[in-house]
Each structure stands twice: as structure tokens, then as C-alpha cells.
């Protein structure tokens, strides 16, 4: 198991590094410009007040306030770019973990050895989990030294909350992607299905926020449960979201492992 994880880790260390560096780069940019933004916060708030509420809701922003770093970074980064990076990273790992091996024709090399299919599945899953934790640690908690560096006031607890929410959100996306990866034999198909599904979820969330009579559609979207704004601006961890993500993680992982164990490769 250890060999499976470490080898997979070694093969993907560059992509992990690229995602982490990109995430840290975004953080640095936002933290560095925040002092000048905060000095103009009152003007920005006035400007935002003139925006139509529907427009703001469409982008998942319902509280516009630039008076704290957390409010600003939630709106600029954690409501859009960060989850997008997380989603792409997780789908990419899951796609390569199972379907990618079949696609490349290397699955026979692995399964010709005394490695059970379940062990391979768990090994790849654990790698995804570890990579997710590293990504979150690097791209969320780095805000603390960056804020110190730029002399910006911050609330560390709120980053812990967004990390927990992000961990469950990322694992839910990863588990579902692993299920799709266990079902299909082409990496591209996993990306297409998962990418399409998440775009659809995003659209459902937007539509639900715009139309009162369609508001229940939001419950079908991961983006409804990943409420970065509440986590960062209010410091609230929505337990319903955690339970929904946990349910998706458990069900997807069990079904994915069963499918992988039984299918032809």
C-alpha cells in the first residue's frame, strides 16, 4: 500500500506543486492588494450597493463588505477561483487513478502483481486525500504568514472553518470522480462527465438563486453546500453541508470500490 501511494505521489508531485503554488500566488495577490482595497472599502461598498441583488446572487455573493480581509477574500477568491481549482485538481487525480491506468494500458502491469483491486482503489483514494489536505493547507493557511507579511489583520479561526468545509467539498468531488473513474476506461470521459456535472450544479445553484419557484434546485448543487461566504465572513460551519458531503463521500466511495472490484479492466 505504502509503495502504491508513494509512487503515485512521486509521479504527481509536479502537478501538486503547480496547484499549490498557483493557489498561494492568488492568495499573495489578494492579500497584497487588500490594504489599498480596505482604504477604499467604503467607496466599494457604496458601489456594490448599487448592483442588482440578482446579479450578486448569481455569483454566490449576498453580503458585500470589504471591511475585513475575510470578507474580501471570500468574495474574490474562495467563492469562485479556489473551489474551481480544487474541483479541477480532484477530478484530474481521480481520472488518472483508475480510468487513466486502463486508458494508458498500464493497469495490467499493476494487476498482474499481487495487488488486490481493492488495495489499488484504497491506495489511490488515500493519495487523493493526502493531496487534498496538502492543497488545502498550502492554499488556505498560507494566508496567515502572508497577512503577517503585509501587516493585514486576520481571523485565523475562519480559515480553519473554510478548510474543514473545503476538505469535505473536495472529498465529495473526489469520491464522486473516483466512482466515475471506476466505471469508465477513458480519463477524458471522467473529466467530461464530472466537469459537465459540476457546471450543471453551478448553473442550478445560480438559477435557484434567481427564480423563487426554482429555489429548491439549489439542494442538488455542491455549490449551495459549499458556502464560503458564511464560513469566512460569519465564521459559521454549516453542519448540514458537512453531513451532505459526508453522505456523498461514503456512498460514492463504497459504490466506486464495489464497481472497481467487479468490473472488467
Amino acid at each position, binding site marked *: 500500500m505504502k*509503495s502504491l501511494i508513494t509512487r503515485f505521489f512521486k*509521479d504527481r508531485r509536479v502537478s501538486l506543486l503547480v496547484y499549490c503554488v498557483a493557489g498561494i500566488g492568488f492568495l499573495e495577490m489578494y492579500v497584497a492588494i487588500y490594504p489599498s482595497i480596505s482604504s477604499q472599502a467604503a467607496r466599494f461598498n457604496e458601489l456594490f450597493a448599487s448592483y442588482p441583488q440578482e446579479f450578486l446572487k448569481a455569483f454566490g455573493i449576498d453580503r458585500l463588505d470589504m471591511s475585513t480581509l475575510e470578507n474580501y477574500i471570500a468574495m474574490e477568491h474562495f467563492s469562485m477561483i479556489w473551489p474551481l481549482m480544487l474541483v479541477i485538481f480532484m477530478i484530474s487525480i481521480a481520472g488518472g487513478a483508475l480510468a487513466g491506468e486502463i486508458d*494508458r494500458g498500464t493497469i*495490467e502491469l499493476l*494487476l498482474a*502483481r*499481487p495487488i488486490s483491486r481493492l488495495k489499488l482503489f484504497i491506495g489511490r483514494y488515500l493519495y487523493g486525500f493526502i493531496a487534498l489536505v496538502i492543497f488545502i493547507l498550502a492554499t488556505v493557511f498560507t494566508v496567515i504568514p502572508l497577512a503577517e507579511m503585509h501587516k493585514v489583520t486576520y481571523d485565523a479561526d475562519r480559515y480553519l472553518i473554510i478548510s474543514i468545509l473545503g476538505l469535505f467539498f473536495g472529498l465529495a468531488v473526489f469520491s464522486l470522480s473516483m466512482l466515475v473513474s471506476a466505471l469508465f476506461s477513458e480519463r477524458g470521459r471522467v473529466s467530461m462527465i464530472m466537469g459537465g456535472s459540476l457546471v450543471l450544479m453551478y448553473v442550478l445553484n445560480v438559477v435557484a438563486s434567481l427564480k423563487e419557484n426554482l429555489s429548491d434546485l439549489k439542494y442538488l448543487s455542491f455549490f449551495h453546500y459549499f458556502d464560503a461566504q458564511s464560513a469566512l465572513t460569519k465564521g459559521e460551519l454549516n453542519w448540514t453541508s458537512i453531513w451532505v458531503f459526508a453522505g456523498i463521500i461514503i456512498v460514492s466511495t463504497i459504490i466506486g470500490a464495489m464497481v472497481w472490484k467487479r468490473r*472488467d479492466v
Partner: protein
Amino acid sequence: MYRFFKENMVIIEVSDFKKYFGKTRAVDGVSFSVEKGEIFGFLGPNGAGKTTTIRCLMDFLRPTSGSIKLFGLDNQDHAVELKHRIGYLSGYVRFYDKWTGWDHIRFFRKFNGQSDSSAELIRRLDFDPTRKTGQLSSGNKQKLGIILALQHNPELLILDEPTIGLDPILQNEIYKIIHERVLSGATVFFSSHNMPEVEKICNRVGIIRQGKMVAVQRIEELKEKKVYRIHAHTDGAFDLSRFQTLNITVLQSLEHELNLEARGDINPIVKELSRYQLKELTIERAPLEQIFLEYYEK
């Protein structure tokens, strides 16, 4: 008693094995067994079901019905345990392009246990393990595939076209290695399109066609099928109608020449040919390849 059991131990036992892909019957009720120490050649035209059978033996594909036992154990229930004892070479061997040969050998060694003969195999196959596999020629990839299949000294070798892409010198080295492994107690199951290769190294062959096993025979038995090729040359013309009643196939008939394929007793043909003033007569055993091809075409 123990010795008798060991010598006759069945290593591969396939019973009424079927594999369907939707409505396509890739393998349709195949049964055969391979005993310890045998080199069993698995032959058949493209699309006959050879690779499907091999991939089911390896538990990559799951049979639609029937049973596959290796070393007396169900190959699905004991997959991990069995793979300690199996060396497998795919017919479409693929590697991780960014890894070197060493990366592959070292990584898979971790799963195979203590026994390792990779250094000797590298030397004998003249393989450079320092290069990334993405840069290797097809022949060198095949060498690496063979090293990975044999490095842990397995008791059963399942090889899908092991010598494809290799030059004759390396082919002979592979045959030598296979024979040495058999002498030290291994069993070999391999598929090939190379008929002289099969004739050279196999004890027994199974021929699959359209998903069904059409023959399982010892090489000696096939050789005893007594198929002859007869070439006769005379001054006069042959009267073909007189040959019609004999057990022959006319391969070519020219004015003064006759090429025949005959089976079984050739005395009536020789008697008939003796009626002519022959300038030349050659009678030779048909190559085994001819006999294989007949099974392919039946």
C-alpha cells in the same frame, strides 16, 4: 505417490469457460488443462478469443460462466495469492512513459517478494534499464516486459506473444530462458502466431477458433497426422481423373507437373504415379504450420 501427484499436477484448469461482450461471444465454452512442467501453446487466428482467455486467466476480465482454476484455486477468489506465483506478459505491453526501466523493475520488485532474477535477465537480454520507457523501441519494451514477467521466478508463466518484435538471436535467448525455467519446475502457457516457434518449444497446443477450442493435442500427435506434399514431373500428361478417388488435394496441375497434398497411406498414390515415366518425384512431410492452418480454416 507424492512424486506421481507432483508430476501430474494440473496447473491451469479451465472448464466450460464463456466470455460474452454484449451479444458478441468472444469465448464460447472452452475447456482445457495444462499440467506442471508443460509448455502449452495457445493458437488461433486474430479475434479467435486467445487474448480474452488469457485476460480471464489473469482475472482482468471476469468470465460470463464457467470456472478457471490455477494451482487448484479459483482465480478470482485467490487472485492476490496466485499472482505471487504467476509471471505475465501482455500482448500489448504498456509502461509508464516517464519511468525508466529501473523504476519499473524496482517498483514491481516490492510486490513480488525476495526472489529476484532481474539482474541476470537484464544481462542476458542486453537491456539498458537506465532509459525512460517512453524512449524505448518496441523490441526493448518487449525485453522489459519479459524481465518484469520473469523477475520473481514465477511457477507459471502466462505469455501473450513473448517474442514479437525481437530479433532471431533474442528470440532464441527467450526460448532458452523458457526451457531453463521449465527445467527448474515452471509451467508455461503462451500464445503465438509464430508457428515454427510453437513447433520448436511447445509440448502441447490448444487451437481456438471463433471462441471454441477446436483441438488440444501434443505436438508429436500433430506431427503424426501424416500430411504429405508430393511433387511429380513427367514427360507425358497426367490423367487427373485417376487421382480423384484417392485421398488427395490437387494443389497445382500443369501439363507435365503435379503438386498434391496427401493424407494417411500414400502407397495408392505412389502406385498411381508409377504408371507414368517420371522425371522427378519428391515426397515430403507437410510442415506443422500447414496442419495448424487447417484448424484455423476448418
